[in-house]
């Protein structure tokens, strides 16, 4: 099967999921690269810096808009169609599964805080949990699109 044929058989929403995984992972690296660098420089866990968080959010929003615009133009009419029954099931299941990805690291972060009393680390771990949950929601969508529902 050619690449072109393969891409043609991927729905607009699956392509969106692939793109968002890449965008969110890149955004996560951007944010945590800064946090880790600052932590190394100061020798302790970097405090929550609202500027990093705002920069992360802006980066994600801008990248998402660009990606969605490009994919929508490429998809044409398909991008205007509402999600069909299979896509709704996939979205619901992926959202449900990703809630566990949010819960488990968040509980780990709370346990870590109870032991270390490091509030800065608690902030970063909770933020990481949110990022992972969002990334895995799209990963689970891709999995269900590929495997079947």
């Amino acid at each position, binding site marked *: 099967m050619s690449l072109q044929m393969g891409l043609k058989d991927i729905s607009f929403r699956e392509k969106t999921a692939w793109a968002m995984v890449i965008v969110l992972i890149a955004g996560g690296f951007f944010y945590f690269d800064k946090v880790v660098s600052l932590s190394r420089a100061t020798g302790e866990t970097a405090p929550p810096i609202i500027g990093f968080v705002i920069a992360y959010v802006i980066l994600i929003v801008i990248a998402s808009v660009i990606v969605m615009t490009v994919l929508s133009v490429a998809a044409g009419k398909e991008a205007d169609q509402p999600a*069909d*029954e299979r896509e709704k099931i996939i979205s619901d299941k992926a959202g449900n599964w990703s809630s566990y990805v949010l819960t488990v690291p968040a509980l780990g972060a709370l346990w870590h805080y109870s032991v270390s009393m490091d509030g800065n680390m608690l902030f970063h771990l909770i933020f990481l949990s949110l990022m992972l949950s969002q990334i895995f929601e799209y990963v689970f969508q891709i999995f269900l699109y590929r495997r*079947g*529902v």
Partner: protein
Amino acid sequence: MAKAPPITNRIRELRESHGAMSQAALAEAIGVTRQTVIAIELGKYSPSLESAFRIARVFDLGIEDVFGWQPPPLS
């Protein structure tokens, strides 16, 4: 790999016998994406009852002429 659902179908065969109807045309007729039609044909997705009826009506057949059910073997 997900366990294949016990629902079987003759959609591909019926499309071909109806003037080689494309997956896109069937998808448009029943209100789903082409990829969902592909998933149904491959047994990766069992359609809702409403979609199953819509598909059967497209081919002017009863629902059991299009879909079958293979119950899992009794243990």
